[in-house]
């Protein structure tokens, strides 16, 4: 039960870059990836989104897929990010590798495009099953020939974080020695209109943890980590370790977070407990920070309850938008970059503290000694997950 879980590779594709290098460069130069829709077809032409400026056709070409492929946009983004992760971890053989994928939107992009066509037009019927998250996972797994333990977690915006947690547990238990974990979600009219109908979609760039925050902006992304047992990773470069994780439910409301952030608080407590760390040992927090009125206040309260003295924290959703199921994955990558480069990434667009909690996020890039990073991901259905990444095992 005491096997440590090493991260030996990571890959990312988001609105701030097509790979690790570009994402890191955007983070250190404060360059966000929000813009108005160009690829996504929607009437909401003025709403800022974190869109990846590549068409499905071009993404498919870059993967050498033939025209009859059944890759959803999330599968395309996911395959590209996963490719980088396994390359990074120098993995060539996929026989004994597991895959836990987090996705929530799944292939909704295809469903909403072809829903009214299926009945009378045969052309795109191969996407009928795409509505369900497992379909996207299978496309990615099939591309690499990952054939054994393959599953999908769909807990809304905490999906990828839960996938990372599950991967770590599979390794700790000895059930697997090597597993790819993370998540992918693309933009869709379904989710854009969904959050817009909840009246929590911001017409300006997101302002996480700011008193004047007006809501979230959606983004699309994919990010994966390769996790290996410490024995298997012995001769490899180890990026960091997954040292802690905690999952709890807020049990308060289907979409809103409780006033005192109970679920978030419990998830962080459990993560600290599994990592055997005290709160003061956390050097940086990559917060969930969606920039909605409700989340940021609730999360702030949970943070105050957990940390007597607040470590440096920021929400990188101000760079990428809220990438839903992928958020826990890309933010894990940002947390690992923080450890690798010993730096804290800024929370963009912040001006004034929330009156009730007065927490001030990091607003500029800072060098700092970083041994332990905590990353939060919370979702609909009260699903709250916290992860801790540590420099040393």
């Amino acid at each position, binding site marked *: 039960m005491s096997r440590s879980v090493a991260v030996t590779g990571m890959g990312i594709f988001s609105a701030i870059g097509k790979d690790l290098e570009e994402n890191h460069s955007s983070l250190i130069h404060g360059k966000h990836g929000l813009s108005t829709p160009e690829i996504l077809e929607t009437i909401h032409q003025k709403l800022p989104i974190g869109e990846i400026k590549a068409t499905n056709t071009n993404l498919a070409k870059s993967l050498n897929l033939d025209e009859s492929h059944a890759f959803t946009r999330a599968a395309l983004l996911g395959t590209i990010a996963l490719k980088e992760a396994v390359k990074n971890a120098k993995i060539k053989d996929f026989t004994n590798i597991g895959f836990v994928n987090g996705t929530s939107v799944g292939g909704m992009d295809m469903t909403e495009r072809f829903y009214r066509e299926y009945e009378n037009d045969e052309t795109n019927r191969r996407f009928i099953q795409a509505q369900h998250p497992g379909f996207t996972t299978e496309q990615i797994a099939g591309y690499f020939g990952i054939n054994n333990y393959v599953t999908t977690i769909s807990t809304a915006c905490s999906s990828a974080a839960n996938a990372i947690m599950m991967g770590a547990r599979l390794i700790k238990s000895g059930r697997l020695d090597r597993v790819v974990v993370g998540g992918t979600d693309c933009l869709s009219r379904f989710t854009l209109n969904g959050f817009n*109908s*909840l*009246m929590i979609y911001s017409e300006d760039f997101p302002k996480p943890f700011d008193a004047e925050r007006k809501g979230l902006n959606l983004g699309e992304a994919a990010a994966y980590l390769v996790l290996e047992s410490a024995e298997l990773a012995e001769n490899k470069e180890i990026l960091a370790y997954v040292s802690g994780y905690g999952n709890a439910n807020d049990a308060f409301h*289907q*979409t*809103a977070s409780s006033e005192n952030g109970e679920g978030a608080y419990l998830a962080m407590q459990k993560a600290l407990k599994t990592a055997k760390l005290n709160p003061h040992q956390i050097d940086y927090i990559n917060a969930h920070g969606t920039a909605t009125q409700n989340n940021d206040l609730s999360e702030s309260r949970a943070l105050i309850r957990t940390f007597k003295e607040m470590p440096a924290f920021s929400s990188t959703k101000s760079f990428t938008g809220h990438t839903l199921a992928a958020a826990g994955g890309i933010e894990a990558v940002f947390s690992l970059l923080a450890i690798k480069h010993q730096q804290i990434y800024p929370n963009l667009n912040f001006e004034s503290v929330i009156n009730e909690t007065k927490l001030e996020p990091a607003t500029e890039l800072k060098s700092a000694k970083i041994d332990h990073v905590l990353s939060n991901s919370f979702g609909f259905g009260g699903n709250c997950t916290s992860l801790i990444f540590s420099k040393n095992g």
Partner: protein
Amino acid sequence: MPIMTDLHTELKASIIEQLNLEDMEVSDIENDEPLFGDGLGLDSIDALELIVLLEKDYGIKLTDPKKGREIFESINKMADFIEANRTK
């Protein structure tokens, strides 16, 4: 005697339909009964549903969901607000 208009009845019927209050009838909702909290027991999601109802049926667009709370206090308040602001 409270003033009972067609708008009051219409609103009650729309609310029952829109919010799936299956076991309720128009006569179960009082004009001055609080719609939220201890009264009818509606919640923040219902408030968002009612905001769309205002826009769709009466051409009134609310941008701040917090405003809904005052307007949707009771059927009477809603009816007054609609009479004063309706565009269709």
